[in-house]
């Protein structure tokens, strides 16, 4: 049973919103002081869209990433994934969700240093119950997809930053997730490599229909996003639709979308 991609299972029955945040508040204790990292965020994310969350450092982007990704619990409000309230899930169901429904990409790549590129990509599949042989086949396929077919057995330390992030993208895709969550995916990359990674993400979004949610302060992301959510001091400042952005880009470059 584990082999078949389980993406369509919920897609068929699910609503158009894959993620819904309702009045999400997150407070952290810093000694005796309370830091309000998120201050009432309400946001509906459409299935299949490429959404960028933009904002200055410290505005709460990573905190929102944690809430949507089920990595931490909100102090107030709720987050729904496929209409399931995440607060209702127990530890095992959360692990299941992280394994199958969401793929994570980090600023610091976060490959497991002791494992090769292929082993890193295989890991979520092994956690998901796939046999080693199946995981190897799919792992190779995914690494080819991100352009690393020649680097299967390299350790992360033997790969460049851009290559490491490609491995991380392949790993995020391992179990056919419905959502890819990326926190500053280009933050540790140079301009050109960052652009390549963004283009790869956009391509995957178009070809595989995976919803991409990316926290960033990289303006290169503007070009590829369907929607941009600007946050500031833990609140949504404004939401920009692609249409409005496209006109502006079109004006500058003279190329219709």
């Amino acid at each position: 049973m584990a082999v078949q991609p389980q993406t369509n299972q919920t897609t068929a029955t699910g609503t158009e919103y894959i993620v819904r945040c309702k009045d999400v508040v997150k407070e952290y204790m810093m000694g005796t002081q309370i830091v309000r990292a998120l201050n009432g965020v309400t946001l509906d994310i459409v299935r299949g869209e490429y959404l960028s969350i933009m904002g200055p450092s410290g505005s709460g982007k990573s905190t929102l990433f944690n809430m949507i990704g089920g990595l931490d619990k909100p102090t107030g409000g709720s987050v729904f994934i496929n209409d399931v309230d995440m607060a209702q899930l127990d530890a095992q169901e959360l692990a299941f969700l992280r394994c199958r429904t969401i793929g994570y990409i980090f600023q610091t790549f976060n490959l497991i240093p002791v494992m090769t590129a292929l082993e890193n990509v295989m890991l979520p599949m092994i956690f998901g119950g796939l046999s080693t042989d199946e995981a190897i086949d799919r792992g190779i396929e995914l690494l080819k997809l991100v352009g690393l077919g020649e680097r299967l057995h390299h350790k992360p330390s033997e790969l460049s930053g851009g290559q490491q992030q490609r491995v991380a993208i392949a790993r995020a895709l391992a179990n056919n997730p419905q959502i890819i969550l990326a926190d500053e995916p280009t933050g540790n990359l140079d301009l050109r490599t960052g652009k390549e990674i963004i283009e790869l993400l956009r391509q995957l979004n178009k070809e595989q229909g995976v919803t991409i949610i990316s926290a960033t302060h990289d303006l290169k992301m503007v070009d590829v996003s369907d929607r941009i959510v600007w946050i500031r001091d833990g609140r949504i400042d404004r939401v920009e639709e692609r249409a409005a952005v496209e006109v502006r880009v079109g004006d500058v470059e003279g190329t219709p979308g």
Partner: protein
Amino acid sequence: MKKDGRQVERLQLPFRVAFHISMQSVRIRFWRSVITAAGTVLGIAFLVSVLTAMMIQRNSGAITDPSERYRMTWLVIMSLLVCLVGITNAMLMSVTERYKEIGTMKCLGAYDIFIVELFFIESALVGLIASVIGWFLGVFAVVLLKLFGEGFKVFGWVSPGEVFLYLILSIVIGTLLSVIATIIPAQVAARMPAAAALRVEV
């Protein structure tokens, strides 16, 4: 998930995979592993040296004082306890160093029990290797010392069968010691939040 009418399966990490990950972990973090192993090596070396010295004394026909035996047993137990604390401490440091890795594994869908499993296999491996080294050092040190004192007749007082038994004993005690010392660090690792994967400081 239950809410969708789906059932969450009870998954297991295949032992072969877990073993492979743990072994790589020991190899790549070699010096950290050496520090963890040092506790076991010293504890086992002391235990074996006491046993070997007693065997040589017995076989040489010297009279042994029974109260001396109790004192040595007590010393060995105390030294093993001290080693236990040492290994726990080294393992705890190793866990805090790996916060990002552990958090990432949780993001990829690892159950807490997988993390515990990885740490236990790792400590058993380190314990096993450390025990063999400790056993060798213990026997070697005592035989060498007696060789200087008594000359070559020492070799007549060493019974190979008994020395081999010490090896088995060392492996059992050393591995157990290492695994027991990892109970608390493994719990700490398993409780590491998935959000630790994003932490940038430390």
